[in-house]
């Protein structure tokens, strides 16, 4: 019986980095899952929540719970959005039936690498990627979802991939949502430190489980005219040997 997956696509992935979601679908189908995209979804509410506007975020959360009410398993290619649902929805809807619903949905919502390794027990998803890659440990996935090994194990399972360790891989890249624009100088400085760490590895690509980190790092890599390019974990896992 194929697993039925409901895809949760972060709003900025939907609008700005659609290939991340396309590649997520490809990977999930390759391992034999049935993938559905509930079109009623929009945004998990994180931007408003992080800025302190919880009353504006709450309706988005309630909408999310409605849209995904019947989903068996929800998979999302973003650590921060998965964190929003699992860790912060119960706090946002602090009591009553919505709170219990939030807890229940949170248990069924997984970040992509978390789903592949912890739920499906896979580290080899049939990918080939003949390049050197270094890994940036996105903060939400690392500290809120406690994902330390899972993305690395998946990367080691990719044929032809040369994994290079990055110093200070757990240091924040500096995106932080609206922090990136409200405190652009600090955000950029943190991003530059991250790009320096990437450059030292000499890797062709830097990857992470959070597309927002990668968007920010790519912006700074481009400014610095560095050699490395960003690529989301899903896109690496979706890659196949060239015919």
């Amino acid at each position, binding site marked *: 019986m194929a697993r039925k997956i409901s895809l949760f696509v972060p709003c900025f992935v*939907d609008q700005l980095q659609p290939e991340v979601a396309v590649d997520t679908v490809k990977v999930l189908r390759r391992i034999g899952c049935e993938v559905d995209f509930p079109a009623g979804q929009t945004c998990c509410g994180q931007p408003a929540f992080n800025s302190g506007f919880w009353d504006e975020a709450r309706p988005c959360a309630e909408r999310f719970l409605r849209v995904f009410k019947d989903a068996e398993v929800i998979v999302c290619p973003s650590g921060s959005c998965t964190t929003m649902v699992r860790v912060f929805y119960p706090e946002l809807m602090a009591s009553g039936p919505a709170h219990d619903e939030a807890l229940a949905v949170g248990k069924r919502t997984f970040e992509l690498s978390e789903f592949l390794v912890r739920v499906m027990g896979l580290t080899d998803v049939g990918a080939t990627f003949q390049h050197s890659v270094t890994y940036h440990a996105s903060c939400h996935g690392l500290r809120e979802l406690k994902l330390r090994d899972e993305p690395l194990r998946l990367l080691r399972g990719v044929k032809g991939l040369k994994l290079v360790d990055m110093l200070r891989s757990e240091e924040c890249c500096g995106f932080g949502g609206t922090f990136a624009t409200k405190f652009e100088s600090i955000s950029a400085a943190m991003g530059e430190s991250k790009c320096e760490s990437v450059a030292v590895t000499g890797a062709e690509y830097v990857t992470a489980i959070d597309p927002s980190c990668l968007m920010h790092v790519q912006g700074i890599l481009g400014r610095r005219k560095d050699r490395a390019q960003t690529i989301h974990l899903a896109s690496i896992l979706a890659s196949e040997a060239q015919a």
Partner: protein
Amino acid sequence: MSTNIPTPTPAGETPSALTAAQKFLRDAAIKSADLVHREIIRKNMDSYDAAHNRGRARIKDWEAARRKCQEIKREAINNLDKYLLQFEQKVLERGGHVFWAATGDEACAYIKDLAVRRGVKTVVKSKSMVTEEMHLAPVLEEQGIRVWETDLGEFIVQLRNEAPYHIVTPAMHLDRQQIRDLFREKLGEGIPDADPQKLVALARRKLREAFFAAEMGISGANFLVADAGAVAISTNEGNGRLSTSLPRIHVAVTGIEKVIPRLEDLGTLWPVLATSGTGQPITTYSTLVGGPKRADEADGPEEFHVVLLDNGRSGLLANAEEREVLHCIRCGACLNICPVYRNIGGHTYNTTYQGPIGSVLTPHLRGSEFQHLSYASSLCGACTSVCPVNINLHHHLLHNRRDFTKAGGAKTDGERRQFKLWRTAMLHPRLYELSGWMMRRSLRLLYGMGLAGTALDPLRAWSRKRMPVPLPSQSFRARWKKELSKKELGRNAGGNK
């Protein structure tokens, strides 16, 4: 999207017209771009990281240690009145004095009056962030009293007329040459090779005169031990020991939240504080002072005063969700790990307490004028991951933001309006799709005309420092509708270009 944080004031405006938030943005921009500063801090923090990791490895079960310290502080804070009274009674029984100060001004007045009454001309001070919070030194100096900061780092920044850069390592931002030059200028003695050993020896010589001459020693307190009625002071240099042994009056100044229930609690707290603060197994001197010199003792102060400062702490206590912020043992680990702190340095905060704990605490102690500190964070959570008493620091930043916007007012109304619009779009998928499409379309046009980063670019706060994000012609949901909802994918999906 415009922000509720004001943009930096244009050049030409007088500095006094800047709000705390504007000043912060300006200083943060300067410091973040300062590569020399970045390198100095990087070296210091790498050294701390190595020592800290070695220190943690010495403790068999670090998570159990954190949990135990959390439990001790939680018990203390949630029974604060009981333990403060137990502490006070013991100190009074031994002939010590306990003064309860509601505000920093009251505390300063008490100490100043005491010093004047006793004819104090010279004060030696060991490190106390609370005395910085109270701005004590100027109050004493106004009376013609000479105040010597005796902690080496504090001594250095005092000579420079500067605030401490970091709560544990006050002169972290200076190198040995700068310190050598400072000593030559202010102390009149040169050390050509700027050897740290010789610099320390010079400071020792100068401060020794002060230790032996001073009539009053002022210390902080790391902990107030309730069952022993003792002030616990953790130091390495010996200045805390000399300040509390030689002068005839000892004043210990402390926040009311420093209480712990039992002497044996220090068996866990002392090693954890030292490990988190500097990577040591324990600080060189872990001192306990319970009263003035007893008749049968060889030496010691004739008078012992403990000043308990509230200054907003009881207000924080009443906020049950935020109460655990008072568990802080002031180790400095959160400052050390914070990437924001590493880039902007301690002075940019312009507050007594910096870094993550400072950002959480200061809006509560000093008001909404400092609320921008709660926003100056990417919420990475590194602080929470190292806090030895398990304070959920980054979640408290979120709470601060929530409470600040709830309180309303001009500062947040603009942003609230924008989020209300945003919410409307997010609740209506077709409106959301349309807005998304319009944004991508207009930005592609704008960037195509080379206008990225200019005043016409709504995302210029992004594009000023980064290459603009490439804009796809189709959203994911459009592709899903067109091709992906079928079982098979038509062609290979590529990477992130």
